């Protein structure tokens, strides 16, 4: 049943009023009594020994409270930052995890590495003083490119990591792939680079450490997608405080896209310094700092080969990737180019044999970790570009080649050769839906019209798949994860009938306060305005693993449903007592308890009231209506779809205009279509950004970040993008009680390949991302000359 506020309704967001009236409370909006302000002195060099640090002049500057260096942090026994996912190389060796001190001790390994932390009464004083610190560096030659880092004679980023090799990992049956290639009628090859991106959530990272000496308790406000995970890591591994003496609050968070999953040096130092000084310490990143110190995304060099029979049927796929990890391992860095990447190389296809080899390498650049999609955009990009190239090689239409190789809608569950079991889907339907949306049949006429104006028009497809709802603890544990990936929820009725839902998921734009409230409204019949969703505070929410990997609804929402089940179960007992019936005879629907076969009924509100005012109450039942549940699914979810880009290229300048975009995605059941569409819009925009505009570029000689501000790093703006045509299809997910698959990352996963394929179609030459205007112009020129 779809009510106005239930499942399936585009309910306007509950959180919007505060954001629209300036009453959101983001971290920098929060101030603690007596707080001091911190500023980091960061390395100006990509790679250097720190010979000495002289803080004398800075310490004497006005307002300075304290200055800490790496030596101070080490002396206090504060542990380094950790990587929480263990990857085993093909030779059986564990991945190399060199020390990652929160403040560099004797060596800086990327521009922006923390060198000292200055705390003062005002921010301006802290910054003024930071400039007075004198550091004597001995510069060394850096290496910034992943492929260069594994070349013989490359600079060694860490003494204890020979050849800069973090791991050399493989997945799949190499012999089967070799056999497939031996029997192939045609082999298509691809050599591509997946560009490095800076996530750029609009709210810069920030933290406030505060200390209650009376209770010996640290309170950390931080811009986190997963405050409980931050508490766990800071407690168990970094040693900031025991978990029960550390409260982490992630208030309103202004976007994350993965970059706020990780446990960073800055929040670590704020928490530690607050206790040391017995004074609150606040740090807020400036955008320039964000560019240098937020974990970046992607940065893969890949060669791929696709073996096909004479009819274009895929026989085997071989992929070799070098993944740039940056200077240190960020929290989940190792998992991204391995289990979140190679496991998706089957795409939507029946390719029977796949082998992937991934070398993860250290360089003198900012750490690289999960960014919207995390590994899965890289996989889709490889698969969907090589499929399109194969279609051109074979002279088969890209639509037809895909259809020949799609997994059939009746083939589920479907086991791929790269350890995934796809649970449901209908790939041909999504492709056909997207073709209709963009009027694929009318493309030739549109192309002719463009040509009459001297423009080149192209169209490109991307049929993506992702594994998300990142969860099954047993599965991820077997693959190296150091944590469980369940989710928890608490559903608490108040005596007067209102409900507070405490969720371990964290909303930083996803609209959980609305979507989760819709679940309660639908299933417990509570008016949506009487449902409050609380998240982001380890002092309020029982437990949580946070929001990433499109997991909030599939895992967090399912946990809420489990708690709802418990509420209903208890409610039935209370209702049975109130109506003098047997609990077995009570039926529940939408917040109304009925005695089966009678017209006797009580409402959820009456039941909740009785539970808190148990004057007339079952003798063997606990009072209260407050249930907590944990949920751990048995499989990932597998959203999939087809996106189609249409572009027009100005051959005189190389400027690419994205003139149309169509997407048909299968996210299983949808709770709030409006919110889902918004997620697609945003994901596609980031994917278009990667393909066309965004590029984190380090100078290969100096290791300086050349695109270190919005003056040089091109963020997609309103006039860079088209409006999008979006539809969803639905094969319900069999793996969770809501039948949902997750939608947060799909657009970013699908979009780059679609756009690059469209550009190739327009200019007739393949280029790497980003398709800058100069690159497109040069390619178009060379294609023109080749044609003449």
């Amino acid at each position, binding site marked *: 049943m779809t009510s106005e506020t239930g499942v399936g309704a585009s309910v306007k967001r509950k959180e919007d009023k505060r954001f629209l009236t300036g009453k959101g409370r983001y971290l920098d909006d929060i101030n603690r009594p007596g707080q001091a302000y911190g500023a980091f002195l960061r390395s100006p060099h990509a790679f250097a020994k720190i010979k000495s640090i002289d803080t004398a002049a800075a310490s004497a500057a006005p307002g300075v409270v304290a200055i800490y260096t790496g030596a101070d942090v080490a002396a206090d026994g504060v542990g380094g930052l950790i990587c929480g996912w263990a990857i085993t190389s093909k030779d059986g060796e564990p991945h190399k995890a060199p020390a990652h001190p929160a403040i560099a001790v004797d060596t800086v390994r990327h521009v922006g590495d923390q060198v000292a932390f200055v705390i003062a009464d005002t921010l301006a004083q802290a910054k003024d003083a930071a400039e007075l610190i004198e550091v004597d560096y001995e510069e060394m030659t850096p290496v910034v490119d992943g492929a260069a880092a594994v070349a013989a004679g490359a600079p060694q980023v860490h003494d204890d990591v020979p050849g800069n090799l973090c791991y050399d990992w493989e997945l799949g049956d190499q012999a089967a792939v070799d056999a497939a290639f031996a029997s192939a009628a045609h082999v298509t090859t691809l050599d591509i680079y997946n560009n490095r991106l800076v996530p750029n959530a609009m709210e810069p990272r920030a933290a406030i450490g505060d200390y209650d000496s009376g209770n010996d308790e640290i309170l950390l406000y931080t811009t986190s997608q997963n405050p409980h995970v931050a508490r766990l890591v800071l407690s168990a591994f970094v040693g900031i405080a025991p978990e029960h003496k550390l409260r982490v609050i992630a208030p309103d968070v202004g976007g994350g896209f993965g970059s706020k999953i990780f446990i960073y040096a800055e929040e670590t130092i704020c928490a530690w310094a607050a206790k040391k000084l017995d004074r609150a310490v606040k740090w807020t990143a400036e955008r320039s700092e964000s560019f240098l110190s937020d974990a970046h995304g992607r940065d893969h060099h890949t060669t791929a080969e696709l073996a096909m029979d004479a009819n274009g049927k895929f026989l085997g796929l071989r992929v070799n990737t070098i993944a740039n990890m940056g200077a240190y391992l960020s929290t989940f860095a190792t998992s991204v180019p391995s289990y979140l990447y190679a496991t998706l190389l089957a795409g939507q296809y029946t390719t029977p044999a796949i082998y992937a080899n991934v070398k993860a390498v250290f360089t003198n650049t900012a750490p690289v970790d999960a960014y919207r999609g995390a590994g899965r955009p890289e996989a889709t990009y490889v698969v969907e570009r090589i499929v399109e190239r194969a279609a051109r090689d074979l002279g088969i239409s890209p639509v037809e080649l895909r259809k020949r190789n799609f997994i059939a809608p009746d083939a589920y569950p479907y086991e791929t050769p790269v350890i995934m079991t796809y649970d449901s889907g209908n790939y041909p339907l999504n492709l056909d839906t997207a073709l209709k949306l963009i009027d694929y049949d009318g493309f030739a006429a549109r192309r002719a019209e463009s040509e009459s104006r001297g423009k080149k028009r192209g169209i490109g497809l991307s049929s993506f798949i992702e594994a998300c709802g990142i969860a099954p603890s047993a599965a991820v544990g077997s693959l190296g994860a150091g944590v469980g990936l369940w989710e928890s929820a608490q559903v608490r009725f108040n005596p007067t009938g209102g409900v507070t839902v405490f969720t371990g998921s964290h909303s930083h734009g996803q609209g959980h306060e609305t979507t989760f409230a819709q679940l309660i409204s639908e299933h417990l019949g509570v008016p949506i305005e009487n449902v409050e969703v609380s998240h982001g505070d380890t002092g309020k929410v029982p437990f949580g693993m946070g929001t990433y990997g499109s997991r909030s609804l599939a895992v967090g929402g399912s946990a809420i449903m489990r708690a709802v089940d418990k509420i209903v179960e208890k409610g039935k007992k209370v209702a049975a007592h109130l109506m003098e019936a047997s609990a077995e005879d009570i039926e529940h629907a939408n917040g109304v308890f009925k005695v089966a076969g009678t017209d006797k009924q009580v409402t959820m509100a009456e039941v909740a009231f009785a539970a808190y005012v148990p004057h007339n109450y079952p003798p063997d039942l606990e009072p209260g209506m407050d249930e907590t549940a944990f949920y751990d699914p048995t499989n990932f979810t597998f959203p999939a779809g087809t996106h189609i880009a249409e572009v027009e290229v100005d051959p005189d300048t190389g400027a690419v205009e994205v003139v149309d975009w169509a997407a048909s995605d299968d996210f299983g059941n949808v709770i709030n279509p409006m919110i889902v569409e918004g997620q697609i819009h945003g994901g596609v925009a980031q994917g278009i950004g990667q393909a066309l*505009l965004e590029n984190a570029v380090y100078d290969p000689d100096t290791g300086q970040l050349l695109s270190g501000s919005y003056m040089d*790093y091109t963020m997609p703006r309103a006039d860079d993008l088209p409006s999008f045509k979006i539809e969803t299809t639905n094969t319900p997910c069999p793996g969770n009680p809501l039948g949902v698959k997750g939608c947060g990352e799909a657009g970013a996963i699908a979009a780059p390949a679609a756009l690059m394929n469209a550009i190739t179609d327009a200019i007739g030459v393949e280029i790497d991302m980003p398709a800058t205007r100069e690159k497109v112009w040069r390619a178009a020129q060379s294609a023109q000359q080749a044609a003449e």
Partner: protein
Amino acid sequence: MYEFNYHRPGSVDEAVGLISEDAKILAGGQSLLPTMKLRLAQPSDMIDLAGIPGLSDISVDGSTVTIGATATHASVAASSAVAGAIPALAKLASGIGDAQVRNMGTMGGSVANADPAADYPAALVGLGATVHTNSRTVAADDFFTGIFETDLAENEIVTKVSFPVPQAAAYVKFANPASRYAIVGVFVAKTADGVRVAVTGAGGSVFRASDMEAALNGNFSASSLDGIAVASDDLNSDLHASADYRAHLVSVMAKRAVQAAGG
């Protein structure tokens, strides 16, 4: 940002009197303040021109458009008088930065800052404008002397710029996709004294493309520019455009500007 003293003089003379070695003139601040925020500039004193009466006046007098130093880009863009006399100038102003920058940024600030990728220098040189300071007038051709360098003396303040009204003119910009400054901007003007082609963004400072001017003097038509390119030797090269690409873009934008100007 470093500390500084703030002054808000009521007259140009008072402003000039406040100038000292490390002082900076604050007009709109849209270039200066970002630089100061990044601690790349450390003025001892900021002299705000916003309180000086009459300095933002815009007037059109027969064959001349005169724009006061503190006239904002938005006010130039919105001026029907400017649009009537030199539509290319109003259009250029409407494309500087973004709407918010145009509401604060000033013509005088842009001219005195002489950013090699700024738009206004192309208009000044393209139209053969005259820069008025507190003490003299300077021809635009002589005003821009290098990267962020002008002919202004230390104790000189730009007070207004007068633009002769051309027969036809147009400005076409190929913007940096990130900063939205000009990678290449070409201002073409057909004047009584001949055609002027001014190029911004491509080099260290705005410059005139004399080969193009000669060709267009012969025949004011985009096709006259076929095969004419500026040399790439001294052009800028950065993340967003190599010197070769910039040279190519100068030709493309020049043709488009000529077409837009009716040629």
